[in-house]
Each structure stands twice: as C-alpha cells, then as structure tokens.
C-alpha cells in the first residue's frame, strides 16, 4: 500500500461514515480517507481524487449509488477504482443490478468491521 492510497466513503448517514472511517483507520499505511454525504458530491469527489477504493451507499439523496457507480464505470480515467456497494440488510436482491452496472463487491450494513478490513486489504493489495 503506497503512502498516497485514497479511499472514499460515500454515504448519506453520518454514523455509517464515522464507523467506516474508524474501521479503515486500522489499515496499514494510513490511507487518506475522503468522505461525501450524497451521490452528486461523491461522484465529484471520486472524479477529482481518483481513489483506489470507494465504499458507496445505494440509497442516497440527489444521486443514488447505482447512478454514481454507472458514471464512474463510464469514465475511463477511473478504470482502476474498485467499488464496494453498501446495501442495507434485506436489500441483497439489489446485488444483481449492482453487478450489472460494474460494482465489484458488496457489503451489508450493519457491516462486520473485520470483513470490511480484510476486503479493503485484499483490494488495495491487488490494485
């Protein structure tokens, strides 16, 4: 993991952002953690900062996670950005749609911190 590793968290719920941020602080190499509170802001952040990894909520105001994901996938500059969609428990059926539009992974909220850490490590190691 390089020093300028960037991870973006895009979620409208402040407690999810805080919990994910705190979880990701356990990652080695102190990656820079960027946050956005809605889809539009999130897409702008991703396009500006080119994070290697994005945790993207599905249900958000202004622009939902699927639209953000689709927009990121349309942008060839962001080909190296891995997207982890965050779905609420019970919305697992949405996963198929997410995979269709280019999401790589899914995590269910409430998430298992250890699983998130392991997933992030795996993604950043290979990116």
């Amino acid at each position, binding site marked *: 993991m390089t020093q300028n590793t960037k991870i973006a968290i895009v979620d409208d719920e402040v*407690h999810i952002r*805080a*919990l994910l941020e*705190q*979880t990701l*602080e356990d990652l080695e190499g102190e990656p820079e953690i960027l946050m956005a509170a809605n889809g539009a802001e999130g897409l702008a952040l991703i396009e500006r900062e080119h994070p290697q990894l994005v945790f993207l909520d599905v249900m958000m105001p202004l622009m939902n996670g699927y639209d953000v994901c689709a927009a990121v996938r349309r942008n060839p500059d962001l080909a190296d950005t891995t997207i982890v969609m965050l779905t609420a428990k019970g919305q697992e059926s949405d996963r198929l749609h997410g995979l269709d539009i280019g999401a790589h992974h899914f995590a269910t909220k*409430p*998430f*298992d*911190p*250890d*699983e998130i850490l392991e997933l992030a490590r795996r993604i950043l190691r290979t990116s």
Partner: protein
Amino acid sequence: MSKTAGYLKEAWTRQQFELAYPLLPAGTAAAVWFGGKPLAAVGEGGAELSAGAPAVLSFDLRLEGEVLGTVLLRPPPGAAAAAAAWGDLLVHGLQGVIEAQYARHSVAQETLESYREMALLQRAVSELNHSLKPVTVAASLLKEFQGHKGATDFGAVFLRNADDGSYSALGAFGAAAEAACAALVQSRLFAAMDGQPQGDIVNDLAQSPLWAGEVAEFQSLLWLPLSVPGESLGLLVLAARRPEGFAAADLKRAQTLVSVASSALRNAQLYAAEQAMFQSFVRVIATAIDAKSPYTAGHCRRVPEIALMLAEKAHQAEHGPFAGFTLDDDERNALEIAAMLHDCGKVVTPEWVVDKSTKLESINNRLGLVALRFELLRRDALIGYYRAKAEGRPDAGQDYQNRLRQLDEDFALLETCNTGGEFVSPEHVERIRRIAATRWRTAGGEEFPLLDENEVYNLSVQRGTLNPEERKIIEDHVVHTIKMLSQIPFPRSLRNVTEYAGGHHERIDGRGYPRGLKREQLSIPARIMAIADIFEALTAPDRPYRKAGTLSWAIGVMHRMKQEGHIDGDLFDLFLSEGVYLAYAREHLADSQVDPVDVTPYLDSRESSSNLA
C-alpha cells in the same frame, strides 16, 4: 502510532490555525504538535519552535490528564500577554475538539464491537446450528479459534457425562492434542472448572496453585462452561504456549460463540438420542422378523451389510455406469434402514406359509394323515387276504403281496412329491390323481377317496412347496412392507426408504412384484436391495426347501438371473468385479460354503444388462 493521533486532523487544525493567526500580535511564530507530529506552523521560525526555548510559551493539549500535544508561541517582545490569551483561546477550542473526537471514537468503537459480535453471531449461528451431530458442533466451535489472530495453540471441547460427571474430549486441535486432553482432564485445575457457572482466563499457569504443569507447553489458558439452563454440558478449553495468551476481548468473543454452541450441542445431543432410539426400534423390528422363522434368521441383519458394501462400491466408482452415483450420509442411512425393514411386511405373513417345508404342511404336515389312510388300506388288504384264504382261493397270497407293493410305491411317490425338491411332471400329476381315486371304507361302510381335492392340489404343485395362493401370501409381504412404511412420516433425509425397501422383489425386466416396475423406474439403491436380498437368501444357512448353498453355486444362479433380466447387470458386474461377494462371504459364510469362484466368465461386458433397459 497511537490512535489518539487521529483525534486532531492535520488539515482541519492547519486551517483553524491559519484562521486564528491574524489575531496574534504581528511577528509571532506559532506551531502545533500533536501525537509527536507537527500539524501546523506559522510565522517566521514557527517550524523550529521548541518547548523550553527562551521566550517560547507552551500550552499542553490533554486528554484525561495525559499530554497528547503542545501549542507553542514565540511572541515578539512585549506581546506576551496578548499571545498568552490567544493561546488559551486556541487550546480551549482544540481541547474541545479532541474531547469530542475521543467521545465519538469511543462510541464508534463500542458500536463496531457490537457489529463484530453481531457478525460473529450471525455466522456462528448458521454454522453451529447447521449441524445435527455433537462432534460437528464441537469441530465448528473449535474452528472459530483455530488460526484466529489470538494465536491459540490448543483448543478442546470436553463433553460431560451426565451419569457419572466424567469428561471426555469431543474434539480438539493443537500439537499432541489427544495427550494434552488426557493430561488436562487429570489436573486439579480442570476439576476446579467443573460445575462453575462462568469461565475465566488463567494468564500465568505457572503461578496457579491448581496447576502442576500437566501439559508442559501450556502457559496460559481460557476456559468456559458449555451449558443450557439447568444442565452443564461440557467445557471449552483454549490454551497458549505463552503467558498472557488471552485478553478480555477473547473471553467475550468465546462467550458469544459458546452460548450459541451450547444450544446447538444440546439440540444435537437430543437429536442423536432420538436417532439412536429410532435405530434401535428399527433393529428390534428387524430382529423380530428374523426371529419369526428359524429359516430366515439373520436375514434382515445381513442384507443391510451386503447392500451397503455394494452401494459403497457404486459410490466410489469413478468410471463406468456408476461414475455419477453418489451416496451421502443421509442416503447411506436411508439404505441401511430400508435394508433392515425390507421384510417388515412379513410380520403379517402366517408362519406356516413362510416355513412351509412340505406341500401337505398347513399348520402341521398332513402327510401323516395320508400315511394313516395307507395303513388302513394295508389292513384292508390283510383282511382281504385272510378272507380269500378262508374261502380257499389259491392266489390269495400273491394278490396280497401285489397290493402291498402297489401301496408302498404309491406312498413313496406321494412322499417324494411332498418335499418340493423334485419337479412334478404332468405324468406325476396323473399318477397322483389315480392314487387319489383309490377309495377306503370306514367300519360303518362309508367310502372316501384316498386323497381329498386340497391334498391333490397341493401335491401337484410343480416347483417348491407353495401353491399359488400361498405364493401370493408370501409375495404380499412386500405389499405389506410398502403399506407399513408408507405410514411412517419419514423426514426428508429418509424419504426414499419406502422405495428402496419396497423394490427388493422387482425385476429390471418389469416382471417382478408387487408393482412390476422396470429398471429405469427403480432407483439404484432399490436395485442394490434386490441383489443383496437374493445373495443373502442363496447363501444363507439351511432354508426349508434346501441346504446352504456354496458361493460358486449362488454366483452361478445370480448370473442366470442377470441374463434373464431379473437383476441389474451393471450392479451384478460391480458386485463381482469389486469382490463384494467374496468380502461378504469371508466374513459371514461357513468355510464349507466358500468355494473358489472364477468370476471372469460372468464379467462379459457385452451382456451388460444396460441393453435391456
């Protein structure tokens, strides 16, 4: 780097500092250090400021009494008071942020711990509750600690025997785990754990008065009781090769898992007890059927052995017709139960039909009655002789001798036909009818035929001892088996028992009974049942109708049955090529029965019955 470093973010602090800087007396240099790192520096020489240097004002940033950082100011001469006031204000603000961040982190940490526990529970519940075997529950529980980052070197689940309170290992991991378990159970420490409602951590075993180094490598230990309300089930013991191997978090995590494992273990034990009871019921029924007739003794016990041996070979086959056939534990169990119960319908078959050893046997062998009638005729002949002699007839002696010879010959024929060992030809039937027509007279002068209609009917049976009606009664046992088993609400895992058990007299050409099913309508286990049933019957000790057969004879008979479309050819080939017949024979047959068999002529693949399907 301690996590407290995150309480003050570099970018935010720098911004805050730059916003406040214009309020300082001109020419002041200032810097903030936090968590051992410079976060911001302003003014000339700000980056080089250090506490204790001349004219440098220093303000501590604290959290719960601990100094985490410093704000340093070097005001120009005469501006110390104004700079100090600025410093107080800034530190007050930063201090508030640090405390808020600390509180937020603590709450988040607590929440994340709950998330962890919830995730662990969700995973453990499905993993642990999925198993219905105590030993699998123990293995699933231990897997949660094996290779976990806590670096647990040893783990074991001990089961408490409810009868005598003794403990035995149900599962364990680690080097020399078996020996360690045995030594552990003997220790005073282990005895002290018994019956305790709560578990604990022993951080330094060497210091424990209850530990005499029973397992030399163990330096620290964690243990927890496995229990359900009102009942102690056992113990989980984890050990490490270093002191302080376990922390409070490990105990908490183990508690979560053990609470789930305890109820899973209890359920598995109850299930195992139910299973054992069901199995013994099945065995009782099988034994009862076997005991009904001395001639089928052990049949219901031996058929499962043959069936399982053959099914196992079909399961293992990687090539040929059984490459795709698999047998999981549930199906293995279903086949065994089906094989034990395949003749359960015989409980309603009258014994006198099952055991009918001669044609004139009903409740008793009626040949004796016939013999008595012959005796009567002999007396009549003797009386006739004396009467003729008294009348002075010269050929009286010759007539008498001829009559006796005739009677002896006739009776000998009936005796032979009665056994069922000989084929009764139409000529024989003709002679039986002629003998039957002989009349005998009571003292009162009433006349009767020598054999009644029923006796003629039975003696005329061509093969074996059973007349068609009796044969039907025998065949009906499968119908009763199917009827009886259909009434048992078998669980999903045993749903095929009736099909397996009810198909053992079907033939692959569709000419079997009771349903006349064809090969493709019969499952492989049902076809295996047929082979096992026939092989056991052929090689069983004495049967009513014949002596115990030799192995080569039995294989020869079965080979003919394969050619006639009676039994499945592929399975019979497997039965021979995998040596199932021989393995069974060596274990269960008398040495005198086990003669050498050359199976190669029987294994001609061209006559494989798959063509018959």
